[in-house]
């Protein structure tokens, strides 16, 4: 393998592991969702490097796009639920 390809692969692996680590440890759910999307996009680049273009396309569309949107949606719902509960506690 060419030195350039090798460097790219090492950078990708480091980036994937680093993003995974940060998204598991962050306490901010919004940040976690953004990191998850970045993780998905980086992972799809890794699929391209492995020659699996079909998987890369699916990963970018499902892993990064849709799942990210679904998580964002769930986070919003959760925030609304928590706000509702806090209001109830104040009233009661």
């Amino acid at each position, binding site marked *: 393998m060419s030195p350039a390809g090798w460097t790219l692969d090492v950078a990708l692996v480091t980036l994937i592991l680093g993003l995974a680590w940060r998204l598991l440890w962050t*306490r901010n759910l919004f940040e976690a969702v953004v990191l998850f999307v970045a993780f998905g996009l980086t992972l799809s680049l890794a699929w391209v490097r492995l020659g699996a273009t079909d998987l890369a*396309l*699916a990963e970018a*569309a499902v892993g990064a796009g849709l799942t990210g*949107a679904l998580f964002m949606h769930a986070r919003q719902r959760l925030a*609304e639920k*928590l706000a509702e509960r806090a209001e109830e506690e104040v009233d009661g």
Partner: protein
Amino acid sequence: MRDPAVHGRPVRGVLGALLALAAAGLAGAIASAILTLPERPATLAGEVIATLDRSGVESPVTAVLLDFRAYDTLLEIAVLLAAVVAVWALERGAPPLPSPSEAADPVPGALARLVVPLAVLSGVYLTWAGAYRAGGAFQAGALVGGALVLLLAAGILPPRVRAVGRLRAAVVAALAVFIAAALAGLFATGRLLDYPPGAASRWIIAMESALALSIAAILADLFVDVPALAEPAAGPEDPR
């Protein structure tokens, strides 16, 4: 800034130790499985390539998904349909989220107007490209599904439109087309999901298009908050 929706309490103590142990064990098992993989894994890739010219498409991935193993894809879309029906059942009676208004936040709307036409165009291209290179119905469906979600998030799709009717017709389209193709193939060739010789590529493109449409609708439907099954009294638009 602390997120309003913070994580729950962290797991500590004996339970935490047990969970850590279980996770470490799983990681070890996966690592050992990968390390003991045979040097030359059993593969059917050679046979797929050898019979590719009989499939009607040039992409080996699409040939497997829509021709050699079309039965698996038929069951897959049936599973997706079952999942979305379960979501409809769960949503029934849930209070709808207030629809986001464009006046409050114009950014999602502006983004959607830029991105959605491009995403739909790319989706059509990906469906078509699936016949001869990387691409295909699942990727295209996910892309168009994402575009629909953007429209919902921006408040461009009004709740009435997203509730019923056409969306649900799109959800079942792929399974209907697949079953029709399977039965037509049965009558034409005597075998389930076998295509008449010479017409295979046209059949596959038609099925891919239906698949892309249904997958987009199913994925978008997961984001629809209003009960997907409108109450019978809600209006003349009776659920079909």
